[in-house]
């Protein structure tokens, strides 16, 4: 009986240690991998954009390849150092690299709905604080030659099945868009898949930039 209890106790302690290690992996292990990719993406975009500028100045054409970066996102409320390269695609493989552009939705600055999804936890927790955005907050999308500034208009919680938030006019499937919108998506509450938090904004300004990457 004592032996049985001891083995049971040891198994519990072992299981606890494994769960703790798994938590550490989710928080830091996946973040390390993502940050390595993000560093490589930053260098890659800077180089691409520099070549673009030398060859044909102020080009606005975007070249989208699944799993490849094409723009940076900055959200001042998340701090000056908060910056991620947005990759094309929102499969798990792409979201492990950073925030992903939902295929089929508009491009930055385009009339329609530019939708970006990112992990709340894991992969460097890009959208950990998404719920803290308030109307009027800025979201900056920086592409090769242009910086697009969107202003947050509203935040809502939806169920996972609600794909209408991705429509060109969110929630109105058959309307054609007249405005350039942005939609940021992550899960809520953190760690779970029960709801999605949707943060919407509309384009406020677009300015050409020649700096490294704003």
């Amino acid at each position, binding site marked *: 009986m004592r032996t049985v209890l001891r083995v049971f106790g040891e198994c519990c302690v072992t299981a606890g240690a494994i769960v703790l290690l798994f938590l550490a992996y989710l928080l830091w292990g996946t973040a390390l991998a993502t940050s390595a990719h993000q560093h490589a993406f930053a260098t890659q975009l800077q180089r691409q954009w520099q070549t673009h500028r030398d060859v044909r100045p102020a080009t606005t054409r975007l070249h989208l390849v699944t799993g490849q970066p094409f723009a940076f996102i900055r959200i001042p409320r998340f701090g000056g150092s908060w910056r991620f390269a947005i990759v094309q695609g929102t499969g798990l493989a792409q979201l492990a690299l950073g925030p992903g552009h939902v295929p089929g939705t508009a491009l930055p600055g385009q009339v329609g709905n530019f939708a970006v999804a990112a992990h709340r936890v894991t992969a460097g927790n890009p959208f950990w604080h998404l719920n803290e955005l308030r109307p009027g907050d800025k979201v900056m999308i920086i592409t090769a030659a242009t910086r697009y500034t969107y202003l947050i208009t509203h935040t809502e919680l939806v169920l*996972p099945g609600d794909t209408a938030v991705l429509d060109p006019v969110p929630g109105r499937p058959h309307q054609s868009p007249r405005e350039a919108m942005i939609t940021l998506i992550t899960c809520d509450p953190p760690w779970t898949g029960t709801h999605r938090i949707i943060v919407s904004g509309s384009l406020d300004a677009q300015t050409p930039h020649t700096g490294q990457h704003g």
Partner: protein
Amino acid sequence: MYRWLWQRLPGGTTSKAVCAAILAITAAALLWFIIFPWITPQLPLDHVMPGG
């Protein structure tokens, strides 16, 4: 379980301790680099896409 393992490790206390540490690190590395990356996408954890 752990006592049984400890008794089977070779040498004196120092040698046993070194072996135990190596075993523990190997187990942790196996979990961290192989099992956790494999299991993470299978969990209903942090799925962010609408409809997915």
